[in-house]
């Protein structure tokens, strides 16, 4: 986490950046997991 708390990048910016890519990816993974569960039914 070098430099994360120094002047420049804020925690909010980091959260926004990760959320921007993380939220759609998580939703997609969850959707795939739900479909994958059919293997075990």
């Amino acid at each position, binding site marked *: *986490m*070098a*430099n*994360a708390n*120094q*002047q*420049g*990048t804020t925690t909010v*910016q*980091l959260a926004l*950046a*990760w959320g*921007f*890519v*993380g939220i*759609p*990816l998580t*939703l*997609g*993974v969850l*959707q*795939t*997991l739900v*479909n*994958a*569960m*059919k*293997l*075990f*039914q």
Partner: protein
Amino acid sequence: MSLLSILDRNHTIAKPGFSRWMVPPAALCVHLCIGQAYALSVFNLPMTKLIGITQSAPGDWKLTELGWIFSIAMVFLGGSAAVFGRWVEEGGPRRAMFTAALCWAGGFFLSAIGVYSHTLWLIYIGYGVLGGCGLGIGYISPVSTLIKWFPDRPGMATGMAIMGFGGGAFIASPLSVWLLGKFSTATHVGVAETFITLGCVYFFFMIVGSIIVRVPAPGWKPEGYVAPTESKGLITRNDVFVYDALKTPQFWLIWWVLCLNVTAGIGVLGQASAMSQEMFPGKITPIAAAGFVGLMSLFNMGGRFVWASTSDYIGRRNTYFVFMVLGFCLYCTVPYAGSIGSVVLFVCCFLIIISMYGGGFSTVPAYLRDMFGTRYVGAIHGMLLTAWSAAGIFGPVIVNYLREYNITHGVPKAQAYNNTMYIMAGLLVIGFICNFFVKAVHNRFHMKATDNRGVEPAGAASAGARA
């Protein structure tokens, strides 16, 4: 001119206080978008009914014709990564990401026109050629930047980005299905509108990535990180010029290691659904097989991060040794799993195999960095991706033709894949041997301090001392 200059490497140098953890999401913005390529098959069926709407009519495109779209895109992925690698490296990540966004979105727009006018060659040029160039440039654009920001964890950093490429389909697939549902009517299949929407969404995402991305200032290093002062084992502190790398046996040995690892994985990835149903008739239904394919995709994505991160601790060469040895054992186990009817063993084997397939992609940039230094790693990685294109031909051909050969010679369907598995195991033995012969690059290939080939990219925080 001034507008375009913000794309230059000089304008992307990070100011003091910039967190390096902003760079992985920037890279993911690009890789998650271009990873859509793995979900292109979602459009196959709708594009065979553009005229007939409910079913294929005379004049509608055939699946075999549509299959070429993906193949052309893959060829141009490898080609553009190889050709534009040096341009990407010297121009910086923002210019490369911006160009990739233009190509990728432009490919969708051109394809939408192709669908609207029912002109297949426009889709070949749009998604295949233009989109393929976007794939290649986008794929390599953040690699060297991430390695420079994370000299202490290069495997983990590149693993995160390349994981995005594997995960792109998870977003693209449901999104495309949803959009097709929204735009389709009783008299119209909404493929063109879906392409336009996807093009806009991906352009926005990739532009955000290009805005966020930064290169480290010269001499920057993470807090507490002490760069080794001399080469240690396979890890060099020197740089090799991009075209000199081609003259080293190490480049070609790693090329074969990647090609063989990908060949083994890609061959079964495309056939997993049919293979599981034919090896376990009655036990694995088509619905369960679809779930199996989804699970494999998750392991493909997860393996990219886990294996690349692991390589930071056990070394790149050792990681590939694990891929080859463990892969050999697992491929040999698959026929046994089929013979005893163990679905669990079969599924476990393939999930680990496919995680190593993904791991092979994500570990190789750090492997190249170890061998050839940081300065041209992106460009060298681009040239290495031709191994992927080659494996894209070898893998499916081996699996499909061997299956056909076995079936026409009276082998039961349940056992038709056994020889294929043993051949894949054999390929990994060759890969093991290639990996075994990878040694440190001879110092005659190292760039000298007086070497003025290429332009020293501003912000290239290569810690390597020149020979």
